[in-house]
């Protein structure tokens, strides 16, 4: 998986790392059970403090996407094929999605364009066969 961040960007680095990993899981490039580098290794490769990577991994663990253990290291815990998400998570996500869509609407983006952008984004994700329709 190629992981790209903007160290001098406005989004905190730990969130960028988290976002790229979530996108890789959704895109099927990092399926459930696949390993990720250790926090120290990824910190060296990105040239950032290892606490930054640790924070990203911890966030992904809290979201149920990553499993961290001393024996196996960091491993992707679930993906699009792992069944329905936790109901609490879905409720939280719906709230965040609403805010995100509201931003587009507030900026004057027509509803059709918002839907088109959503479809374009979804086209990059690896849903189980039959689920995307």
């Amino acid at each position, binding site marked *: 998986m*190629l992981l790209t961040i*903007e*160290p001098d960007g406005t989004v905190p680095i730990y969130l960028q790392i988290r976002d790229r990993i979530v996108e890789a899981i959704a895109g099927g490039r990092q399926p459930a059970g696949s390993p990720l*580098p*250790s926090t120290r290794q990824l910190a*060296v*490769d*990105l*040239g*950032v403090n290892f606490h930054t990577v640790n924070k990203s991994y911890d966030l992904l663990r809290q979201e149920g996407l990553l499993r961290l253990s001393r024996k196996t290291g960091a491993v992707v815990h679930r993906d699009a094929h792992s069944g329905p998400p936790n109901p609490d998570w879905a409720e939280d996500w719906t709230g965040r999605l609403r805010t995100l869509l509201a931003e587009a609407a507030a900026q004057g983006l027509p509803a059709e364009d918002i839907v088109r952008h959503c479809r374009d984004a979804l086209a990059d994700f690896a849903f189980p066969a039959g689920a995307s329709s």
Partner: protein
Amino acid sequence: MNPGILVAMLEVPLTGALICATPAIGRPTLQFGVRVPADHAAMPVVRAERRAFYWRTAAVTACCTTVAVLVAGRGSVWPVWLVQLAQLLADLGCFGLARNKIAAAKQAGGWFAGRRQVVTTDTSWRTSPARFPVRWLAPAVTVIAVTVVIGMLRHPDLPPVPGRSAARSSLGGYGPVIGQLYVTALWTGLLLIIYRSRPDVDAADPARSARQYRRFLGVMARAMLTLVTLVDLSLLLSALRRWQIGHIPAAVTVLPFVTGLLVLAVVSLRTGQGGSRLSGSRLSDGRGPGPAMVADRDDDRFWKAGLIYVNRDDPAIMVTRRFGVGWTFNLGNRLAWLVVGGIVGGLAGLLILRAVLGPF
């Protein structure tokens, strides 16, 4: 002419030629230690400075080689080393001139304005890591073992030290073996650190450059271990001379070492820094380069004089060099200082041993 003088004299044109050719083997996005966007790598100022650098360093090499040949006949290695130092300083001056002009043009033209400056890595570098070529270490270990066995067979007691009576024979007779052990351990240790270092991934085409780097590392590691074997072989030949086995001319003892240097130079020229000169068509995965407005992060501020990397926030011990082929230390990292201290301490230990036990 003794082997030390001969090696020092040969190093002058060899080093000069390598430095002269260095701009051609670097990454296009790094010009004289200055980070430039991929679409600025062929700017008129860059091309002009490269041409000027070739001519200046070629002239320096020609002058220094002539002087080195003249002073080598005096029977001392010191004048040749002074010529090497003068050559290095002159080449550094040429580098500084080119670097300053390109950096000024970059600043004035705002080459990075409006670009997304990114850092990219390939996580498969860690999840499917490149393997250290242990087998390529076997020849060096064999040469050391052969040296020890020959020494023990020739001199069942400790081998003699030149200039000392048999009664004063000491561990110094095994000087060449100590040298072999130092060189082999040093390079093996450095290569192990390098294998754990980050890959040199180009934001303009990350997938391809990551694969190029993987190939580059394997090729360079094998070339370096070949050099180590040939250095050990040179030390074996010098041991044979010391132990009075056969009649080996002094010049012959340096041949393996010089051959190793040439092998490393040829490999470096063929691969380029980070594998940038390796075949692209064989490596491309069809995904092609990234967006045009994406560039590697402009990290010039961490590179002192374009050559020395000092970044306290970067946990890397070693990173790829900006000028030339290979790696350098991150002097902002305490562990890097420990490694440098170990290397210098080891060398100092060797010199002390040499003084106490006799010349190696």
